């Protein structure tokens, strides 16, 4: 195996598109996989020296987050804390300080574990994903990308995420640490706005319920327009139960998660800034 550390995106792509090369971000997933020989690599292309992949910045009405931004960077960023609350809460729930210092947002998507914590949050925040290859740049909504297997052709570089700044509120909650058995893990993210006392623009996404994180269009439809009173959370919990039931089907984890989801959704809603006062929750 050999190791290279290019400094520009062009050099990264040139190295990464050669057969057998893997991109290396923080390494918190990849290094273990290499050691366990779950993946083989002829060489590693370390992305740490490409400055533009490490930036978080507001551009007009959107937030641009580079793929190499670490979870600690996100947690320390005021814009993320206010404008992308669900993502900030997901980062806070993740791993230990040592892992947050090293693990990147790009690696979380690229590794694409069913329980990747950032994905439900990025879904409700309507993230678009910037992909680069020799044929140019493409921008794909995350929800659409997560339907593809593999996520992208090998050699493709995930450059970053684009989040529209909608001014809406969002929240996130999860059950079970990473070491917990898969059956005991579940996460939910929510985004919504209040308009004349009613919910609008509602989005709910789940993680660790099935192969990949997903947005529930059904739930959004059921919840949009409902009055934001105590009953709102109850309807959300009840409907979420049906969604999880359908998503998990006959899986062994279905009976447990069907019950657990109400608590997770309740907590995710309670973490939304304007729902905290108690009137909504």
């Amino acid at each position, binding site marked *: *195996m*050999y190791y290279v*550390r290019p400094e520009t995106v062009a050099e990264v792509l040139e190295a990464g598109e050669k057969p057998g090369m893997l991109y290396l971000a923080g390494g918190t997933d990849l290094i273990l996989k290499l*050691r366990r020989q779950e993946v083989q690599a002829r*060489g590693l292309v*370390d992305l740490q020296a490409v400055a533009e992949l490490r930036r978080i910045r507001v551009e007009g009405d959107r937030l641009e987050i580079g793929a190499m931004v670490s979870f600690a960077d996100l947690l320390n960023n005021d814009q993320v804390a206010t404008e992308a609350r669900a993502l900030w809460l997901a980062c806070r729930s993740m791993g*230990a300080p040592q892992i947050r210092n090293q693990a990147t947002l790009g690696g979380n998507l690229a590794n694409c574990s069913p329980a990747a914590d950032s994905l439900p949050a990025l879904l409700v925040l309507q993230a678009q994903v910037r992909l680069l290859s020799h044929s140019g740049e493409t921008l794909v909504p995350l929800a659409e990308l997560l339907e593809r297997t593999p996520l992208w052709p090998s050699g493709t570089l995930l450059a970053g995420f684009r989040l529209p700044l909608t001014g809406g509120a969002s929240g996130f909650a999860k059950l079970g640490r990473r070491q917990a058995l898969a059956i005991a893990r579940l996460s939910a993210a929510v985004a919504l706005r209040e308009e004349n006392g009613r919910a609008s623009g509602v989005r709910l996404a789940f993680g660790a319920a099935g192969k990949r994180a997903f947005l529930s269009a059904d739930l959004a439809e059921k919840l949009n327009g409902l009055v934001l009173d105590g009953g709102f959370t109850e309807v959300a919990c009840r409907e979420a139960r049906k969604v999880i039931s359908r998503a998990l089907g006959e899986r062994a984890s279905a009976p447990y998660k069907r019950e657990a989801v109400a608590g997770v959704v309740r907590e995710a809603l309670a973490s939304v800034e304007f729902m905290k006062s108690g009137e909504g929750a």
Partner: protein
Amino acid sequence: MKIELTVNGVARILEVEPEERLLDVLRERLHLTGTKEGCGEGECGACTVIMDGKTVNSCMVLAAQADGHAVTTIEGLGNRGSLHPVQKAFLEEGAVQCGFCTPGMVLSAKALLDRSPHPGKEQIAVAMSGNLCRCTGYDKILRAVERAAGEVKE
């Protein structure tokens, strides 16, 4: 491959294999055996070192990734003659039993106090949450960090 890094303030040039972990290089090539290998999977924090001011688990970092960076291990903090305030506090609080987790604990505490000299209880608990201890039950460790915060103030 050749890497250049600073370890405990000393510039080092080393010939390493690309698959070698920082942990292996510290222990086997530099004989800095204060850095421990517990789980080898990022979960226990026994292998914690400080890289450019931030704690990382050296079992999850390739030596190649550390090329060009500054690493502090427990050997860089103090010695029997002159203990670092965090080390002193750990001894005074009786926060060391078998000692296996201690180097990682001390480095997590140091990184916290360097960044915020007056941490609250909650902040201390979060900063130490990536370091597991099988012996002490954590109370004494958390108290030791609080004590060190007092020491560092002076």
